[in-house]
């Protein structure tokens, strides 16, 4: 933990998104619309982690990310932990809940699925948690999360 502190400065007020799946921080920043912000942001990629071997980390100054916002990254980084900091102190810490239903962000890999042929937003149902598995509400085909593409 001390080693990490050396690598990434602490923040005064804001949110630390810790234990982000290694290599996914830029995507997470994109989904949470962090990339377009003018606030101070620190992103660490492929840092050592006891829990995960490798992890990414994001620190955002002066923005408190809500639980609801955080859940939108569940599919690409379900292990992430959010730490809300006020005056250098941890005031809140929470994990990610994987939603039972995911609207519009997943592209169905089935080329015969109606969602790839008509103007219709995709809808996926959570079918398994470890590993994450989702079922298309339209064509009913099931996929592991690594098999699908996203449109955020």
């Amino acid at each position: 933990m001390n080693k990490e502190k050396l690598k990434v400065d602490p923040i005064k007020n804001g949110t630390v998104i810790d234990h982000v799946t290694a290599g996914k921080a830029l995507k997470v920043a994109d989904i949470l619309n962090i990339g377009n912000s003018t606030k101070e942001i620190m992103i660490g990629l492929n840092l050592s982690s006891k829990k995960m071997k490798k992890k990414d980390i994001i620190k955002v100054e002066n923005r408190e990310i809500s639980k609801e916002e955080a859940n939108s990254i569940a599919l690409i980084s379900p292990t992430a932990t959010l730490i809300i900091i006020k005056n250098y102190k941890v005031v809140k810490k929470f994990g990610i809940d994987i939603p039972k239903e995911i609207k519009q962000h997943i592209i169905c890999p089935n080329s015969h699925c109606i969602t790839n042929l008509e103007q219709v937003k995709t809808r996926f149902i959570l079918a398994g948690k470890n590993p994450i598995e989702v079922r298309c509400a339209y064509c009913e085909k099931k996929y592991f999360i690594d098999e699908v593409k996203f449109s955020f």
Partner: protein
Amino acid sequence: MKHLISMQDVSTKDIMKLIDLADKIENKKINVDMTGKLAALLFFEPSTRTHFSFETAVKKLGGNTFSMSGTNSTSVKKGETLSDTLMTISMYADLIVMRHIIEGAARFAAETVDVPVINAGDGTNQHPTQAMLDLYSIKKTQGTLENLTIGLIGDLRLGRTVHSLSQALSDFNTKFYFASPSHLQMPKYITDDLDKKGIHYQELEDIKEVMHELDIMYVTRIQKERFAVLEDYEKVKDSYIITKKLLEGVKNNFKVLHPLPRVNEITTEVDNTKYAYYFQQAKNGVYMRQAIITELLNLKY
């Protein structure tokens, strides 16, 4: 129930209610009145059997139909979206019955229009009225859906009827035997679901050894065109042909079901045995579809 799209949406309670309704319709215990109602039978992918079965069901209830078969002479050919076609048809009809080659098309239809939608087959996905008529046939012949031993035989990989049926039966503590050539086995997502529910199933290459245990054998056609090499087809085809000899020693209550059309997978000599049930099964389809229409349109009886 507003629509019938997938067996995934149909509860055990719904299944029993529809079976009870089909039974009352068949035995003329009730008289359903569909007079003045119009059903659109939209077969974007042509199907003689299911199309006629629905047409018969609607007409026997006193309703009327208009239909299309294939997309050659329709606005679809002119490039109209499915959404627009469905919206327009829903302005005329009280009920839409739809078969489409695209998977999920029926769910999309149900979300697009205000009238009830019945899925009459969407690609390789679902064919819930077939599953319901199969369940009705099983209940009629066995007196129950609980604790039965059922063999599913043939092309289990691509046959949507066997998928819907095994999903539906998994709530009734069924013991399954799956017999198919190795590359046409039941898909993993189906067997995973059975595993989750703790349902007993065994995958076999040959059904012979378990014939004496079966209450029902559900046969589907193995299509020659699914084999890359004709020799491979020739090797396995005889293992999946039901002959009178194969039926020696089966249980007294045993029945053979088949969604039809058959080609050669059940020899015609089986037709005259007490075990053949596939033509009655087709007839049961009309009663079950009458029951489904009655339920979705909330028809008076």
